[in-house]
């Protein structure tokens, strides 16, 4: 019995290996020549929020590498779905940009001992939900709705801004070094588009081959 089970596990692993070898990956760096913005002066709840906060509308390092940009491989459906958590921390949405699957329940929570509200707005301006978080540690789950770009506001702190890209396509967010990686992509030629809350970049064609990474870079302005 034990031997059969072991063989079964080995067989499964072997199949998984094969699956891996049949897919490729896309990596790249997102850059811009646009400079970051001046910090924002905090005008309410300074004891919790501090006196100033960085304006994260453009997060760029000295080399022009841009964070919080989202690359999306149009038409490549992926099933993986971790929970999306909208965390209010030190009077900002942390992280500022996130991904979610269409109609997924997203969890809203706060670490700040201050009244936050998390208002999720559809591209049309329609409110998807607006929940109050009057104290830290609460967890409120709400469906995020259909595919699209959802903007997050806080009705008590006007500088707070967050974004949820709702898609069932393969997507990744650039890190502080401007880099992104998309793995387990079936070979083929796709269109890759890039989204950023304040900058724009043209879509590019990308050809994914099995077993090795394809590099593609974006320059936004």
């Amino acid at each position, binding site marked *: 019995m034990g031997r059969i089970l072991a063989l079964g596990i080995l067989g499964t692993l072997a199949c998984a290996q094969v699956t891996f070898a049949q897919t490729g990956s896309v990596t790249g760096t997102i850059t811009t020549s646009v400079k970051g*913005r*001046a*910090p*924002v*002066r905090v*005008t309410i709840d300074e004891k919790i929020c501090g006196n*100033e906060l960085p*304006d994260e509308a453009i997060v760029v390092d000295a080399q022009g590498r841009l964070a919080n940009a989202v690359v999306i491989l149009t038409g490549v459906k992926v099933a993986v779905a971790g929970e999306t958590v909208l965390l209010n921390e030190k009077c900002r949405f942390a992280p500022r940009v996130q991904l979610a699957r269409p109609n997924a329940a997203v969890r809203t929570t706060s670490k700040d001992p201050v009244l936050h*509200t*998390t*208002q999720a707005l559809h591209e049309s301006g329609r*409110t998807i*939900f*607006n*929940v*109050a*978080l*009057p*104290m830290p540690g*609460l967890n*409120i789950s709400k469906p995020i709705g259909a595919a699209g770009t959802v903007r997050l506001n*806080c*009705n*008590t*702190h*006007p*500088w707070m801004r967050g974004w949820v890209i709702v898609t069932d396509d393969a997507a990744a967010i650039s890190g502080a070094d401007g880099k992104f990686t998309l793995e387990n992509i079936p070979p083929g030629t796709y269109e890759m588009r890039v989204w950023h809350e304040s900058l724009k970049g043209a879509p590019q064609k990308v050809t994914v081959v099995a077993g090795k990474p394809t590099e593609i870079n974006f320059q936004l302005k």
Partner: protein
Amino acid sequence: MRKIDEPTVSVEPMDFTDCKLTTAEPDADWERAIAKGGPGVGLSPLMPAFEDSLTAEQIAGFVAHMRGFCKEGGWPSGNTNFPRPIVTEKAFPENEFLILPAISHDREWELAGVYEQRFGKRSMVEFEVPVQRAGVDEIAIAFKHAVHASGFNIVSLGLETAFLRDTTVFEPFISAGSMLRDWYLQGQFKIELPADRAKADRAIVYNAYVGHDTSLAPTTWTLGVELNGENHELALTPQVRKGITGTGALAASIGVMLPLNEREEQGVRWVGYLLWEFLEPLRARK
């Protein structure tokens, strides 16, 4: 360093110290606005929902606190502002326009236009013009004053004066309302006293209503039944009312008046109203 001047909310909150605005609605409506946020009562989504972060007791506590911003005594409690029955005159003073159609089984019809305007803390004046196939042969003006309104109980005294073509009819009345669990109970007793008894008859009018909301939303269906009496004629009027707009400021009601006796004399009548609460407290701002 930059300062973001964008306002946190683009919809100005109402002035909670203005008693005229903050006393007219039941606690349940305010609790719903806090629990469900603005959209729960047909208002702006800028008002967030607190139902996942506060208990019902905490929300009720907030409402009690907010009621305290009105520092003047004497305003009737919004908890006594019950949904209007079709025939029974409600006790709570309102700011409303109404159209009340009535169609009898033999196709005779009447359409009454009513304008109600609050004044002072507890009073209301009402103008009514009924239109019939033959035209207008009556106009009426009424005053009403809430002599008691606390908890879920209200009693009002009123005088309606109907100016007919050949005489005037004075109609003193008493209206009352109460709540028993989730049921609205409303009643009215009126005496019609014509100045010239040769031109119009004296009458005793009595109405009683019991009703029930099917949900807590302003768009709720309210199911009710009235017992309508005039002298010895009795009718039963099952009816349904519905808030049409999200805030419930526009509402409609329809019912059928079924005679319980004197069937030939009374006949079956379809009755109803379309109501517009023009000074809608939840939305009104200075």
